């Protein structure tokens, strides 16, 4: 795994709070991009979707939806904006394996294999979100984003992390999800479940988590109207 080489030319702007990725796709080549995150593109770029039947994860069992953009008759530029605010990082995989929280996937070149039905770690108590991990392997570029600022930790020993803050980690790290301090702590401490990592490897964390924001924004959401459907 390297940081100093990339298959396609790219630039990241707006770091660290509203990071934006621009990739120059070489003529005839294709880029995998998280669905719904294309912000700008040259007119010679063609989009193809691999999704069947829409976004519903219950239909497909997927937690990660990817479209493919190809540059025809010349190179093409595409600008990608993730939905959540935060930082972004790039790694060049050389047959390494990275486990990535599926909401963090931004884009990848075709040689990177993204298995998105990997596993669900836990269910958030209020957010209803399970933490899904995607397994990325192969050779090529991988871009991922964080919600909030990004912290890269070299783990050597034991490290406890609130699960909502996990972005990615390398193979070689063992992890165990559990509660902290008994059931009273689980509900009232607001920490939800924690993940204890052990071993040696690299861990990417994000400083914010979706569950806390979901709770905060709850009173601002529209209220479901009672009775009668279409007036």
């Amino acid at each position: 795994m390297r940081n100093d080489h990339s298959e396609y030319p790219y630039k990241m702007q707006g770091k660290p709070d509203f990071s934006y990725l621009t990739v120059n796709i070489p003529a005839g080549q294709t880029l995998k991009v998280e669905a719904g995150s294309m912000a700008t593109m040259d007119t010679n770029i063609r989009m193809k979707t691999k999704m069947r039947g829409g976004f519903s994860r219950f239909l497909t069992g997927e937690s990660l939806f990817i479209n493919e953009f190809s540059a025809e008759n010349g190179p093409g530029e595409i600008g990608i904006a993730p939905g959540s605010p935060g930082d972004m990082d790039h790694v060049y995989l050389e047959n390494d394996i990275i486990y990535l929280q599926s909401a963090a996937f931004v884009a990848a070149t075709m040689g990177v294999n993204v298995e998105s039905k990997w596993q669900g770690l836990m269910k958030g108590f209020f957010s209803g979100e399970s933490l899904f991990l995607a397994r990325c392997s192969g050779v090529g570029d991988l871009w991922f984003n964080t919600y909030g600022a990004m912290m890269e930790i070299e783990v050597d020993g034991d490290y406890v992390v609130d699960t909502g803050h996990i972005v990615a980690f390398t193979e070689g790290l063992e992890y165990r999800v559990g509660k902290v301090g008994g059931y009273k702590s689980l509900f009232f401490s607001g920490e939800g479940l924690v993940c204890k990592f052990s071993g040696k490897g690299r861990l990417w964390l994000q400083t914010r988590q979706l569950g806390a924001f979901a709770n905060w924004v709850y009173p601002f959401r529209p209220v479901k109207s009672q009775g009668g459907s279409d007036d």
Partner: protein
Amino acid sequence: MHIDLIFQPGNSAARVALGPNESITAEGGAMIAMSGDMAIETSTKKRGGGGGILAGLKRMLSGESFFLNHFTAGSNGGELFLATTLPGDMMQLDLQGETIIVQSGSFVACSDGIDIDLGWQGFKSLLSGESVFWLKISGHGKVVLSSFGAIYPQEVNGEYIVDSGHIVSFDETLQFKITKPGKSWLNAFLGGEGLVCKFEGQGTVWCQSHNPSSFGWEVGSLLKPRA
């Protein structure tokens, strides 16, 4: 204890280095990561009324309950990273006996020797339209506060008007009045400013550049309805 504020001002977090068996109190839900041997104990400060687990959870959803976690390091000391719900800045204050009034959403952590009181009734949250309550914080020790947006101090020497959604904390010695900003009530409501807080006297108001409610309504209106 040593507190470093990192990733300022856009997505601030606090890195706390604790000495052996030292402890820090933080708002529930703020922990990002910590050393493997850290102990956590939870206590709640309720804004009036018991009601058991379900009532507690409901209050948590409406922002009215206040859960605190006490983190105590093991015998080798420990490290703890604390986060915030909203993006923005953080600041560290060293209180030497004074009292400050703090917006509840801005409280991150404090050391032993700091007292937190939920009983402050100065602002009726109904008037400001925020689902926010206020903490009276006093004592000797460190306090870490966060803001939505950038933090800037506004020295008050006489009078100054601050939209209530922009207040992080202020010296208890300041007087204040909930008032209208323009020359008539019509202006107040149609102009969008609603009611504001007019501070009088001498002291500091710590302001945040952005108003959480304004952002909350912008995002909330695009989300699916809640049950």
